[in-house]
């Protein structure tokens, strides 16, 4: 069957990316939003860094700025795929997508690729600003930078998928879950402080989160240590588990939505 060939599948994935990119290009507010929040966060934490330096607090300058940059990867990866899905609901276009021959896997792949593009643009912009304003180059993270970002990207996608699943299961009111899920991970992942400051039970939870190994690894590297590849391997395994679980939850939520007629009601 033609519809099942690899070129047909690739064209459908391209269709999702093409559509979302066109929507982005046509929306100045969405373009502005790519730049706005990362810049606000960078400026905020940059000034915090300068203040701490002026108080001669002993810490490595790059900790906060590096954390802000990597946090953006995690947050944007999660939120962007949720937003791309929610856009289909807001524009009452979800039924058109769902009755097209686009498979769930192709749809999600398209959303992920589009989110990847936005993450790359946002992080590149922040990296330039960080260098210009505070003299901090993200390349100081060294050879670990690419795996750090990749691990956070996959974790963000997983959280984004769970957010979408929540909307499919509970309806549009669950949008708040799609937005905020990633922030649940924020205090537990040791983004701005070492996990060792958490109470012991929470430390155990933190070590079950892939992002924890990334932020701990970043601090190790910025303190002059080597990239902790063994820890990153643990994070990669956790990422695989997270992504598999998120895909499972998404598939279950889609089946539930179809069985209970919820998919149809998004078009009402």
């Amino acid at each position, binding site marked *: 069957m033609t519809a099942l060939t690899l070129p047909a599948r690739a064209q459908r994935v391209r269709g999702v990316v093409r559509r979302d990119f066109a929507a982005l290009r046509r929306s100045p507010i969405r373009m502005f939003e790519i730049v706005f929040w990362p810049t606000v966060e960078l400026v905020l934490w940059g000034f915090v860094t300068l203040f701490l330096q002026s108080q001669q607090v002993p810490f490595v300058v790059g900790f906060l700025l590096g954390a802000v940059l990597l946090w953006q990867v995690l947050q944007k990866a999660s939120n962007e795929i949720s937003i791309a899905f929610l856009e289909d609901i807001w524009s009452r276009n979800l*039924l058109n997508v769902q009755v*097209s*021959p686009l498979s769930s896997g192709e749809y999600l792949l398209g959303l992920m690729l589009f989110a990847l593009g936005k993450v790359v643009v946002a992080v590149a912009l922040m990296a330039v600003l960080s260098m210009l304003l505070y003299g901090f180059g993200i390349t100081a993270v060294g050879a670990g930078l690419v795996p750090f970002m990749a691990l956070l990207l996959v974790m963000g996608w997983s959280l984004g998928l769970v957010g979408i699943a929540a909307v499919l299961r509970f309806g549009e009111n669950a949008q708040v879950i799609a937005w905020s899920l990633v922030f649940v991970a924020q205090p537990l992942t040791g983004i701005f402080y070492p996990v060792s400051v958490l109470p012991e039970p929470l430390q155990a939870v933190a070590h079950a989160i892939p992002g924890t190994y990334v932020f701990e690894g970043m601090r190790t590297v910025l303190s002059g240590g080597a990239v902790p590849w063994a820890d990153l391997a643990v994070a990669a395994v956790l990422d695989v588990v997270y992504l598999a679980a998120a895909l499972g939850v998404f598939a279950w939520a889609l089946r539930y939505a179809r069985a209970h007629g919820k998919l149809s009601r998004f078009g009402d």
Partner: protein
Amino acid sequence: MVHLLEARALTKRFGPVTAVDGLDLTVGPGEVVGLLGPNGAGKSTTLHMLLGLITPDHGSVELFGMDLQRHRIEVLSRINFAASYVDLPGVLYVQEILEAYADLYAVPQSRVRDMIDLLELGRLRKRRYMELSSGQRTRVQLGKALINEPDLLILDEPTANLDPDAGDRVRSLLVRLARDNGRAMLITSHNMPEVERMCDRIHFMAEGRIIASGSAAELTTSFGADDLEEVFLKVARR
């Protein structure tokens, strides 16, 4: 007769409400079938089960001889859908929408030009969808619905939001597509003259079941009515 669509014993319950109750439905090649009935009769639920948006509790849906659940992608690539309650991304240009859907249906981009010509969208090509009138939007939706040259077109009240002139234009187009291209259609509508003009076969639904079937002439005769509108009222008030 070989059917494009064959639904057998379709049943769907939502809690205590039986929305569709043991419904059998077929559409043959080139046939235009109307599904009529009062609000809440189960028409849209039926269409959504045929499109895979709702999973039936019981029964089966076969399209082109394939089970919908097991051959979803193959089946959906050969049908298409438009409804008055479904929209398209408002910020996109008309051409961008059609280009995106050409990709989603894995058809050549040349189909976009075909749709622009067929639906006379040339002047609207670079206009945002959200800036269009209801009639223009319906034409774009039909462009999306025809982009893959579907063997079966499913339309849920396609002219519901249109003024008489725009509605007539859309009807004329659909009639032309059915007659000239032999495109099969399954349509719901509350516009009885529209149904009379377009449909070869009509099913009346009430409380989730088909209670009467036939051509417009057969139905008016069997209900002792003057026209299809009167049949509708008799069905709705029975």
